[in-house]
Every structure is written in C-alpha cells, then in structure tokens.
C-alpha cells in the first residue's frame, strides 16, 4: 500500500517534470506577482516556501469550489518560474494525473477564492495577476448621502448666516445711534456758540443753535 502511494507520488513528480519540459498546455494559466511594487520595503523574498504556499492556496481554492474533491499540493503543477516572479501552472485531476482540469473550472475556483489567495500573499488583484482571469470589479463605494451635498450644505449655511449678519447688523447699529444723539444735542447747545461763514472757507464750525428750529416761521 505504502509502496503504491510512493510509486504514484514519484510518478506524479516525474510527470510534473515531464509537463514542464513540454509546450505550455492550453489549460495553463500564467501568473505574475509584483511583490516589490505592492509592498515596497516590506517585500518578502520569493522562494520555494512561497511557491509551496501558492500551491497550497490553489489546492484550497479547488477544494472550496468542488466540494468533496480533495485536491492536494501535488495536483498543482508549476512551471517556468522566472526572476520576475512569473510562472504558469496547471491543475491535474484527482483520478488521473495525466489529465488536466479544464480552464473554466480552474477559473471558477480562482474567482471564488480570489480574495483569500490575494490575502495569503498580502497582494491585490493588480499585483497578483492571473493572466486571463479578469478581476471581478468591486463596485465603487457609494455612500447614501453624496459627500458633495454635505460640503454644499455647510457652505450654504455659512453663506446665509453671513448674509443675515451683514443685513441685520447695520439695523441694530442704527437703532443704537437713534437712542444716543438725544443726549448729545442738549449738551452742545449750552456749552458752545459757533459761527458759520459763507464762501469757500470752511475752517469754522457749524452753529447748532438753530438746528431745532422749524423751517417755516409760524404765523
């Protein structure tokens, strides 16, 4: 029993190597990672362990999509790894290692678990690219009240407050002034006698004595 499993494993790995040396099969998907672009200083180094994680997450994706079918790391065959960190992979079917799972099925599996795959590598749809699988478009966040209405409301509130203040303030000032001059005029008449001059000289002061007189003499 153990021997059989061991034999199958060797066969599958040999089969995997075989697959890589042939031309790219139509069921394959190209993958491209842009780790440094996404993470900058915090970028991790891509090595075999990371590749193992990739195979594991893909196996997980296949398992989630086709419940009951227990895909394993060995079913995910990766080839042509480049320093760019790009490669292509195929998924071998469970029953027969020489057969490959169709593109459509792989695509469905990847789409379903895309978020999980991205998160495992701390990447996004743009930095972990599956060439041929377009990312499902996230709907742009549309809040219930458009933000511009809020700003508009604030501005209009300020403007109307300003208009009110500017219109009402002089009215209040006028009322205050009306109450004041009643006291000023009385004191002026008693203390000062002023003369007014005709002609262009205006250096004198105005005589307030007659300010309260009626315009027309009374009969």
């Amino acid at each position: 029993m153990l021997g059989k499993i061991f034999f199958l494993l060797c066969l599958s790995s040999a089969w995997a190597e075989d697959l890589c040396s042939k031309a790219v099969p139509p069921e394959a998907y190209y993958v491209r990672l842009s780790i440094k672009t996404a993470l900058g200083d915090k970028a991790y180094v891509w090595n075999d362990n990371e590749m193992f994680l990739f195979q594991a997450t893909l196996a997980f994706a296949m398992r989630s999509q086709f419940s009951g079918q227990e895909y394993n790391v060995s079913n995910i065959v990766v080839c042509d790894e480049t320093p760019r960190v790009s490669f292509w992979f195929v998924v071998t079917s469970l029953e027969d290692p020489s057969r490959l799972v169709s593109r459509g099925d792989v695509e469905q599996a990847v789409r379903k678990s895309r978020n999980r795959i991205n998160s495992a590598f701390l990447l996004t749809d743009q930095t972990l690219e599956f060439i041929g699988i377009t990312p499902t478009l996230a709907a742009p966040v549309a809040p219930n009240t458009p933000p511009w209405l809020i700003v508009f409301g604030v501005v209009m509130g300020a403007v109307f407050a300003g208009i009110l203040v500017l219109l009402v303030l002089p009215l209040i000032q006028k009322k205050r002034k009306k109450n004041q001059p009643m006291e000023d005029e009385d004191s002026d008449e008693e203390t000062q006698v002023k003369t007014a001059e005709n002609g262009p000289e205006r250096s004198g002061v105005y005589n307030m004595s007659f300010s309260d007189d009626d315009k027309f003499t009374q009969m």
Partner: protein
Amino acid sequence: MKVKLPNPGLDDRIPSHADLERMETEEAGDRPKWDNKAQYLLTCVGFCVGLGNVWRFPYLCQSHGGGAFMIPFLILLVLEGIPLLHLEFAIGQRLRKGSVGVWRSINPCLTGIGIASLMVSFLVGMYYNTIMAWIMWYLYNSFQSPLPWSQCPLNANRTGLVEECARSSTVDYFWYRETLNTSTAIDESGGLQWWMVLALISAWTLLYVCTIRGIETTGKAVYVTSTLPYVVLTIFLIRGLTLKGSMEGIKFLFTPDVDELMNPTTWLDAGAQVFYSFSLAFGGLISFSSYNSIHNNCEQDAVLISIINGCTSVYSATVIYSIIVLICIKYAFENNILKLMNAFDYAENNITDINYNDVLAHLNHTNPNIIEGLNLETCDMNKFLSQGVEGTGLAFIVFTEAIIKMPVSPLWAVLFFVMLFCLGLSTMFGNIEGVVVPLQDLRLLPRSWPKEVFCALTCLISCLMGLIFAQGSGNYWLALFDSFAGSIPLLVIGFCEMFSVIYIYGADRFNKDIEFMIGHKPNIFWQVTWRVLSPIIMLVILVFYFVTQITKSITYLVWDQEVVFPTLEARPYPDWINVIIFLLAGVPSLAIPLVFLYKFIQMKCCKKKDYSDSTVDTISAKIQMGEKMKF
C-alpha cells in the same frame, strides 16, 4: 495732435480742481472709500488676475512658439495695456464716478459707453460665474478619497465599466457626463441638471455675501481672495520642482520658436490677451479708482498692476506646465518599465528610472521585434499639450488627471480648486461693481433703495438667466458667450474710451488733471501712446478680429459618442444662433452710437437742459449747500 472736438458745458458737469481739494479735506461720507492703499491694489490685482492668466496664457505661450510669445506679449503690454489702464485709473480718480457717471460727465451723448460697459459686465458676469459654479462643484467633490473622477462607474449589469467611460477616460467621463451631463448639440437642451442648479445658486449667493455692501465687504474679502492664489501656486511649484522631470515642462514651454513672430495671428492673440487680461472696458476699474483720494499716484498704480499681471501670467504658466508635463512623463515611464519587465521577465526593480535608457537600448539591440510589439509610449509633449489644453479643458480634464496621479490627491484637488475659486471670485467683484454702480448712476430704480437691494437684484437676475448654462447644452452656450460677448464689444468700448478721453474730454485738460493729481505732467511716452499708438493698435485688433469672425464658418466643439469619440467634433452652429450672436456682440457695441444719436437729438430738438447736474447760475449758487451742513 492737437485735435479736440467741441464739448460745451464740460466745466459745469465736472468738479473743478478747487472742488476736488475741498472734497478731499472735508469728509464726503456718502461716497465709499478704501480703508488703505493695499486694499485698493489687491482689489485691482484680483480683478485683473483671473482664470485667463492660468488657463489661457499658458496655452497661447505654448501654441505660439513658447518663449518667443513673450516678445509680442510684452511689447503690446507696454504699448496697449499700461496706457489704457492708466487712462481708466486717471479718469475715474479725477471725475469720481462710476463708468456711466464718468462718460455722462464728459458729455451726455457718451452715456452709451457706460451703458455698453454695463451690458458687457452683466453678460460676462453671467457666464463667468457659471464657471465658478463648476469650480465649486469640483471643490465640493474633492472632499472624498478616492476622488470621484479617478474611477469609472460600473454599468448596469456589473459586467464591466460604463461604455462611455471606458472609451474615453475617467476624467473626461466625470466632466462631460457627471458634471455637465452634456447633450450632443446646442439645440438639444437636455433639461436643467439639478446639481448644476444647486452649484449655480451657491456661487451666486456666495458672491452676493461678498459684494453685499460694495467695497466695504469686498475690500475685506480681497485680503484672502487675491493673496491665496499666489500661495497655492507656490506650493504647487515647490511640489513640482521636487519631482523629477519638471524642468522638461518648463523648458518646453519657454523654448522660443522665433518663426512664430512672423505669423500675424501671434500678434493678434497677444494683443487680445493683453486687452482681456487687464479687464479693461468693463467699467469696474474706473469705479474702483474713483474711490481713491484725489492725489493718489495712479501712474505708479497702473505700472505696478501691469507688472504684477504680466508676472502672474508667466508664473502660473510655469507652475501649471511643470505639473502637467511631469505627469505625462511619469505615467509613460512607469507604463514602459512595467511592459518591459513583463515582456522580458526581469525581476522587479531591475529596471529603474536611472538605467531605463540603457536597458532599453540594450533590448532594442537584441530583440527589436519584441520592443516594437510592445508599443512603448513616449511622452509626446506636443500632442499631449495640444489636446484642448486651454480653458475649461485644462482645469477640469488635464489637471484633474494630473492630480489623481499624485499622492494625497484630495489635498491637491482642494488646493487647486480653492485657488481657481479665489481667482474667479476676485474677478467677479469687479464685474459686479461694473454692473451695480452704473445701475445706480442711471437712476432706473429709486435712489433711496440701499445698495444691498441693487446687488441682490443683480445677483438674482443673473442667477435666473444663468440657468441656461445649467442645462444639458450649457457648456455650448457658455462657449458661445465666451467667444462673442466678451470679445468684440470690449474692443469697441476700449477704443471709444480712449478716443473720448483724448479727443472729446481733451488731452490738454487731461494732462493738467494728472499734473494736479500726481504732481507732474505725464511724459512723452503717455502722450504718444494715448493719442496715437494705443488707439491704432486697438483698431487693428478690432478689424482683424471682426474680419476673422465673419469670414470663418462658425463652429463649436461637441462631445458626441457617435462621432470621433473621444475627441470633440467641430460642428457648425444652427442658423438661429446668428440672432443670439448679434444680441451678444452687436447690442452692446451698437448701444454706443444709438445712445449718442438719441441724446444728440434730444438735446437739439427739445432744447431741454439736463438739470440734474448743472446748477443755477447765481452768486448764491456758488455756495455749495451740502446735505451735511447744519447751521
């Protein structure tokens, strides 16, 4: 030239020098005054420096031979702009009235000039404030991250992006569809767009609150609106200079192409730009200047403001272009690096900005076919900058695209639109002044009504009439107004102003006035430019403008998905537009001769005298009975 046309009764209509001295010493309380000189200068600078400095001048510079455009611009600035500016300042300060009052004082038959200024200020104010509404709309939308013009919305069944957006670009889509909701032709109204109506109302109410009491309120507002644009431009300049490649843009803008100087349209455009850039012939500058003290040095002011205006144009051109070109370069660069990396499976960061050229050369050498197939983009500045990079296209399409490529985009968006808003608002102050003060002078409405009411009426009527710009076809109407209301009438008014002051008011009298006001007679430069050079230049520009407008078939640019998308298609106007064009350009221009004839006939046939300004000719009449005197 000692030509002077007969002008009887001038002395009775205007205050004499002695009167002016007296008015200076006693507090003439009912005429507003500037709090200080800085306020006056800031208001005038704000009026002159407007959106045209930011989005028209750089385009003209770049399309007429870069640095070489400076030569006709500066020459015409000195020969046309400064003399007319000095003239408007001096006549306003001397006669101490708004535009209608000034021309009526010189000769009642010339009231038409003031009325024409009033009409032009009103029409221009109407569409200019709509641009302000657009700016405010973008400003309101800048307070979110990510910015709404950085993404395309999804289509109805969520399978892809909206087609219009995918075919053009996110910024185009946001401008033409989500802001304007533009229709495909000027006769298709498209209905009122409610969000545009709200933005328009906010623009007019904000303008009202600032101009509610004339220069009392605007004088305070200009401390902010006139200085903030310079602060923001400097911030953008610093930002631009810290990024690599900005010098490319500045170099490109200013490399001179001397052949362009031979082209007459270069000189024409330079002359027109100087004229409109100084906001001459609107009547606002005359009005502002009339609030000055009588001995204010208007000559110095004119030169100072002209220099500031010219420098601002050059400065803003530098800043804007360095930012825009930078983005073009950076974008093309990053795209190309990505393409090369992906095609040749280089590790990331193998190709950087530094070794990009070497790597490209090496790859071109080894695998030329693949390189060709990649379609590497180069930043073709000519093509990039010639795609409608003037006017609203510059601000709302190109610069917004540049903003979304910068980090912390909402901040830059807010800064940019606040700057545009301040530039436009300070210009609107001058426009409103040019409408309200002549309205008060014309005495169409009861004099007892306070200024607030005149202002409110102006803003309300302009807002209601401005609703045509809030329709689906509003953009096309605005372009129509911009081409016709703000071009030929201003040239006509400017020419008539200069002619009236020099030949009807009298150059000798004017010289003596200036000597009285600032202490020395205007020198030979002013004499030559006022009497001969500036009028001739204006006449030439006017004739050329008129001829080019009449001869070419008038078209307008349309955003239509069916045709030549995503560039704009030039389509001829429908026939009935000619009526509108006549109303916009013809009526203000014709107001001058028509009112002239009307007043002339009134004077000759009815022999009625205008009692409102002249005094009864007796001894006691020489005693000025002012309202303030109590005795």
